[in-house]
Each structure stands twice: as structure tokens, then as C-alpha cells.
């Protein structure tokens, strides 16, 4: 079991979700995070003073999945998340020791 964590453009979420769902990934968790990186936030302007918001809002997706699906999921994100512009985001993969489903105490790959 691996955990795939991807920091993506919020605007690409729907496409990525559709792609991983097609692979049979039924579950995922996501939330808003703030990023600092190469991309610069677009300038906003208030009463004549331009300013750069301190960060870029991004979405982080977390998917825990079985080994076989790791590569296809990553490919989904790489393909569907890509615009080619600075700011497309990153993917990180971690090891997961154990998983449980709260509803019925399934464990391991059963629980995913």
C-alpha cells in the first residue's frame, strides 16, 4: 500500500478525479492548501496599490492505494494535471504501514 500525495492546480481537479475514478479508485481525500514555489500569484490591486497575495491557493489530493494502481494513478495526475506552465505542482509517494476501515474493521488492502 502506498499513499500518493499530489499538490495540483485547483482548476485541474475535476479532470484528475475523472481519470482516477476510471481506474477504479473509489476513494480520495482532498483539501485546500497554500503553496509557495516558482509560480507567482497574479497581482491584485486595491486602491491603487498593487500587491501579490502571499501564496497561491492549491488543492492537495491524497489517495492511498495498492501497489498495482500507484503508477496508473500517477500517470493520471501527470497527464491530466499538466498545463506545461510553471505551477503545475508535484506528486509525492509514501509508504503506508496499515489501513483500517472504520465501518467494519476491515484491514489492509481490504480497507482501501
Amino acid at each position: 500500500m502506498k499513499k500518493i500525495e499530489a499538490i495540483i492546480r485547483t482548476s485541474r481537479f475535476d479532470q484528475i478525479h475523472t481519470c482516477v475514478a476510471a481506474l477504479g479508485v473509489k476513494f480520495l481525500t482532498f483539501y485546500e492548501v497554500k503553496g509557495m514555489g516558482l509560480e507567482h500569484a497574479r497581482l491584485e490591486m486595491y486602491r491603487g496599490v498593487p500587491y501579490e497575495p502571499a501564496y497561491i491557493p492549491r488543492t492537495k489530493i491524497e489517495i492511498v492505494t495498492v501497489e498495482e494502481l500507484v503508477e496508473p494513478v500517477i500517470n493520471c495526475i501527470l497527464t491530466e494535471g499538466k498545463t506545461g506552465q510553471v505551477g503545475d505542482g508535484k506528486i509525492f509517494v509514501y509508504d503506508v504501514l496499515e489501513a483500517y476501515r472504520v465501518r467494519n474493521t476491515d484491514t489492509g488492502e481490504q480497507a482501501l
Partner: protein
Amino acid sequence: MMIATTMVFLMHLGFASLEAGLTRSKNTVNILFKNTIIPAIGLLTYAFVGFNLMYPGAEYAGSFFGFAGFGLSLPEGWDTSEYNAGYTFFTDFIFQAMFAATAATIVSGAVAERVKLGPFIFFSFLYVGICYPIVGMWKWGGGFLNTLETPFYDFAGSTIVHSVGGWGALIGAALLGPRIGKYTSRGMTAIPGHNIPLATLGVFLLWFGWFGFNGGSVLSADPGLVSKVFVTTSMAAAAGAFGALIVSYLMFKTYDITMVLNGILAGLVGITAGADQMGVNSSIIIGLVGGGLIVLAVVFFDKIKVDDPVGAISVHLVGGIWGTLAVGIFGDLAGVGQFVSQLIGVVAVGVFCVIFAGVIFFVMKKTIGIRVDEAEETEGLDINEHSMRAYPDFATKD
């Protein structure tokens, strides 16, 4: 009547609040901007051309068009009540001028969240400065609708104010197309308004302003008539709330406050044409029917995929037509002849406004474009057209 003017002024705040409340927070600055600048446009163009287009003077009685020249020229005795029984020239002007912008404010709601700012402001100039006063002249300026055998009757503007706005809203919304994501292949999605308290505030302010709108339209301080108009106005609004509540509850099995708010407005728009002609009971019926009708209208326009985020077409066009025709059905003027005159008025105004708005929007669509591009719409108009956010401190959901 001067106080009525200030109350009508607050209606612009009412429109601004309602429209901002019923749309998404990413387009709020844009909507507020439009609704702030439109009254300014209304006041200035009305002084420059509108007033003299609408009240060109007696020599144009019975006609379709008349113009008494640019700018305001003070008539004799302007500053005393000699000008007209009960009010001065400037009172007359400013009361009328406060109305003028309404025609564009109504459109603003229907085209919200996707219209380009520049073209919309250009449209507002023409619609408020030219279309509205010409139509107004037909009736209030002594034009042909006023000289029909059974004169067309529109007390405070169900047709002349609200339908004019409503037709513009219909044409604008239809030519723009729906907001991204509203009607998808998988069916219709809701795009909920972001601030229901703000929308509620807007409707209460509109109701408040309507007392000025209808009360002031008595154009005299006759307390008997003004107080009667207050009663009919209030009863229609209250009944409109119930009409919408009942129909929406039957249809949707939930207590939808946005429908109740629209229902109140529908009741108000509906009573506007005959506020001085109706009794208490007729006002209640007009309100009830108007309120119920509006719910059906909202569903209908959704079905034909005319996307109207705030229900402006349903409220002002459908409500306005209903109110105008109701003068021929209920109240002191009821009768077949009156009904026919009312119908003539509705149709004439409709044809003219559809053509006027249609030509402007169509020409702009084919040239400068009337719709923001997809990325801009998705990201929000505020950050794109105004480089600003309405609520920069609050975290928003996706």
C-alpha cells in the same frame, strides 16, 4: 414626494444587495460595481437627454417619439408649486430620474456572472438614456398609449419600468447563454447565491423603496390615495410571499426563502400597474397569483435554458405583464376594453424593447463580444475585471 424620491433611491441599494446575494462571491465586486455605477448613469443621462425624451411636451401628444432638446431647461415657476399642483419641477425631475436607472439594474441581475463590464455599461447608457424614456413617453409623456380610446393604464410602471427592464434581461440572458456548469449534459445544476442575508436585506429595501415608488407616483400629496396605495402595495407584497411559498412548497417540498423573496417582488411588481385602482381583496389576489406565477416562471426559464441567476426575468417581465393585464381584470377599471388596451401596451413595449435590446446586444456580440472568456468566468469576474476580491479575509470553498 421628495421623500418618495429618497426611498426610490434606496431601491438601487436593494437591487445591488439582492443581486450580489443571489450570485457567487467571486463575482460580487463586479455586481456591486455595476449597481453603483448604473444609478449614476441614470441620473446623468436622464438630465442630459432622458427627461426631455420622456416629457417632450404637449405638442408630441399621441406620438411615438419626441425630444425637447439636451439638458434641463427650467420652466416658468419651476421652484414653486405653480409648476404643477403639489410639486416643483426639480421634484418631478429627480423623482423620475431615480426611476430611470431601474431598467438597467434589472438587466444587470439577469446577465450577472458572465457579462463583460464595458459592453454592459455601454448598453446601460443606451437603454436608460434612450429606450426607457421613449417607452415612458408613450404613456406618461402623453404619447400614443395615453391617447388610446380606452387609455392604457400603468400607474407606476409595471410595464413601463419593470417590463422594459425584464425584456432587456430576457434578451441579454438569452444572447449571452447560460453560466458555465449550469446546464450540463448530466442535467441542470444549482449555482447557489453566496449570501442569503444580503439578498433578504435587498428585498426588504426594495419593498421599502416601493412605498416611495408607488406612493410617490400618486404625484400629489392626496393622503387618501397615498395611504390606499400603501395598503394595496403592502397587501400584494405579503400575498406574493404566500403565493410563492405555497407553490414552491408544493413543487419542491422545501421552504425556499429565495422564492419567497422573489414572490414578494412579484407581488410588488404586479400591483404597480394598478396600485391606486385596486381594493384590498384584489391586491391580495394579484399578489398571490403573481407570487405563484413567479415560481413557475423560474422553473420555466430554467427549462428553456435561459439562465437568470437572480430571477429578474420572472419577477419583472412575467410579474410586470401580469400586473398590467390585471388592471383589465380587477379593480375600478376592469373591463374588456381596458384589457385590450393593456394588452396593446404590453405588446408594443415588448416589441420595441426586444428590438432595441436585441440590436444592441447582437451587434456587440458580433463585434466587441459581450461575454468574458471561460477562464475569467471560472476564476471569477472580480479578480479579472477589478483585480479585487469582495471578501479577501474569508476562506472560500473550492
